[in-house]
C-alpha cells in the first residue's frame, strides 16, 4: 500500500505519538531529547512526571481506537493481516491503563474497543475443544481486521483529499470588474431584523457551552476600540492625549480610556514612554522585528 509510509510518518510526527513511545518504553527514537552538559539525553527518566494535559494532547492526536490500533501496528512495522491480537491487546491495554491511572476521561469508544480485544484474547486462551469456539474467535479477529482495513483506507482517502489542490488554499478564482456605467451585480438586501435574529440564534447556541459565553459590553466601547485602531492603522505612534477629544466631554473620555485599556489587555496596542513623565505614545503592537526597531530607537534617544 503506497500510503503506509506517510501514515506512519504522520503518527510519528504527532506530539502524542512521540509521547506514547516515551511513556511505554521510556526511550525516544533517535532524536536526543535535550543536551545535558554537552551530552545528548536520549532516555527519559522512567519516573518522569507527565503532566495530564500533555496526555490530553496525546489523546487528541488520535481519531479514536481504530486510529490508535493502526498506530500501534505500524509502529512495529506489521502488516494488518499479520497482527498478533495478544500483542496488540497488551499494548492497547497499557495505554488504556495509563489513562485510567491518570484519571483522564477516556471516551467510551476506547473502552468498548478494550472490551472487544479482551474478548478475542480470552477466547484464544480457551482450550480449542469445540470447533465452533475456534470459529468464533477467528470471526472476531477477521472482523477486527476488516474494520481496521476499512478505516485505514478512508484515513488515507482523507489525506488524499486534503492533498488535492483546492480553492482558498491552492487555487484562486478571478474577479475582473465591469467598467463603470454597465449594470453591476446587485448584492442582496439585508434587513436589520434578519441580522439580529441571526445573532439571537448564534447566542442561543453559544450559551449551551458556558465557556463560550459572550460577555456583555457596551457597544460604544467596542465601536471606540475599532476607531482607535483605525487611527493607528498607518503603523506610527500617536500621542496618548491626542486620542481624547475635548468636545466629547467626560463620557467620551471614559469610553476612549476603557477602549485603550481593553486593546492593551488584548495585546493589540502598546503604550510607549521613553522616560518617566515623558509623553506617552500609543501604537499597534507589531511583530518582534518591529519591537526590536523600537528598542533600538529608544536607546538611541
Amino acid at each position, binding site marked *: 500500500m503506497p500510503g503506509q509510509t506517510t501514515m506512519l510518518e504522520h503518527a510519528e510526527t504527532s506530539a502524542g505519538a512521540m509521547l506514547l513511545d516515551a511513556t511505554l518504553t521510556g526511550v525516544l527514537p533517535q532524536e536526543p531529547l535535550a543536551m545535558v552538559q554537552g551530552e545528548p539525553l536520549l532516555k527519559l527518566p522512567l519516573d518522569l512526571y507527565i503532566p495530564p494535559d500533555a496526555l490530553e494532547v496525546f489523546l487528541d492526536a488520535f481519531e479514536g481506537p481504530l486510529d490508535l490500533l493502526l498506530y500501534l501496528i505500524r509502529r512495529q512495522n506489521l502488516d494488518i493481516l499479520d497482527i498478533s491480537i495478544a500483542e496488540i491487546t497488551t499494548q492497547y491495554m497499557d495505554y488504556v491503563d495509563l489513562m485510567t491511572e491518570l484519571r483522564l476521561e477516556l*471516551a467510551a469508544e476506547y473502552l468498548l474497543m478494550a472490551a472487544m480485544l479482551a474478548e478475542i484474547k480470552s477466547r484464544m486462551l480457551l482450550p480449542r475443544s469445540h470447533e465452533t469456539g475456534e470459529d468464533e474467535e477467528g470471526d472476531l479477529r477477521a472482523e477486527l481486521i476488516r474494520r481496521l482495513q476499512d478505516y485505514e483506507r478512508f484515513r488515507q*482517502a*482523507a489525506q488524499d*483529499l486534503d492533498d488535492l489542490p483546492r480553492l482558498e488554499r*491552492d487555487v*484562486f478564482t*478571478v474577479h*475582473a470588474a465591469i467598467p463603470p456605467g454597465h449594470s453591476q451585480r446587485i448584492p442582496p438586501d439585508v434587513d436589520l431584523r434578519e441580522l439580529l435574529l441571526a445573532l439571537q440564534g448564534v447566542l442561543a447556541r453559544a450559551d449551551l457551552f458556558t465557556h463560550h459565553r459572550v460577555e456583555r459590553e457596551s457597544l460604544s466601547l467596542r465601536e471606540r476600540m475599532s476607531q482607535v485602531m483605525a487611527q493607528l492603522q498607518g503603523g506610527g505612534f500617536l500621542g496618548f492625549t491626542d486620542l481624547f477629544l475635548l468636545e466629547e466631554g467626560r463620557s467620551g473620555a471614559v469610553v476612549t480610556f476603557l477602549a485603550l485599556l481593553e486593546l492593551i489587555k488584548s495585546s493589540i496596542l502598546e503604550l510607549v514612554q521613553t522616560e518617566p513623565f515623558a509623553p506617552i505614545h500609543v501604537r499597534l503592537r507589531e511583530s518582534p522585528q518591529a519591537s526590536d526597531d523600537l528598542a533600538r530607537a529608544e536607546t538611541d534617544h
Partner: protein
Amino acid sequence: MTLPVLKQIIEAALIAAGDPLTLERLLTLFTEDERPERADLLAAISELETDYQTRGIELVEVAGGFRVQVRTSVAPWVARLWDERAPRYSRALLETLSLIAYRQPITRGEIEEIRGVAVSTSIIKTLTEREWVRVVGHRDVPGRPALYATTRTFLDYFGLRSLNDLPPLAAIRDPNHVLEESLVRQTASAMMTNQENNDEPRIKHH
C-alpha cells in the same frame, strides 16, 4: 451594437464571473439572433485554453462548468494579496467528508461505525454550511436517519469534474489470502478489483 469577437465575450464572462459557468449559462448572454452554436462556443473555449498556456491564469473544467483561475505555479505569490490564511480542516472533518464522498448516500451512524468514533455535530454543520454536503433523503429504518451526499460545490472546490475524479480508494485485501495464498492468489486479486469497483461512487452529478 455590433457583436464583438465571440472569444472576447466568453473570456470576459469567465474572468468576471469567478465561479464556473456552464455552456448553457454562457449561451444566455446572447440574444436569440446573436446566439452562437455550441460547437463555436466550445471552439472558443478551447482556443482560450491554449492562449492561456503562457499566461498567469488557466482555464479548467470542473463539475459546475468552465472556470478561469490563477495558474497554480503563480498562486503562492497571488495568495499574498490576502490577509487571511485558508481555513485548515481537521482529520476528523476530512475523514467524515471522504466517507460521504466515497460511500454516499451515507448516514451519520454509518460514518461513525467505520471511523469507530462519534462524529461531532459541528463537523456536519461545517460541511453543510460550506455546501459541500447535503441531506438527500432518509434511510427507511427506525429513527429515519438523514442520508448525506456531496454537492457540486464540493466538486468545484476541490477542482473535480465528477466523483470519478476522486483519488482511487486503496484496495481491501482479503484476510484469508494469507492462509490460502498458494491456492487462490489469482482469484483473490480478481475479487479485490471487483470489490474496488463496487466501492466506486455511483451518484451522477449534473
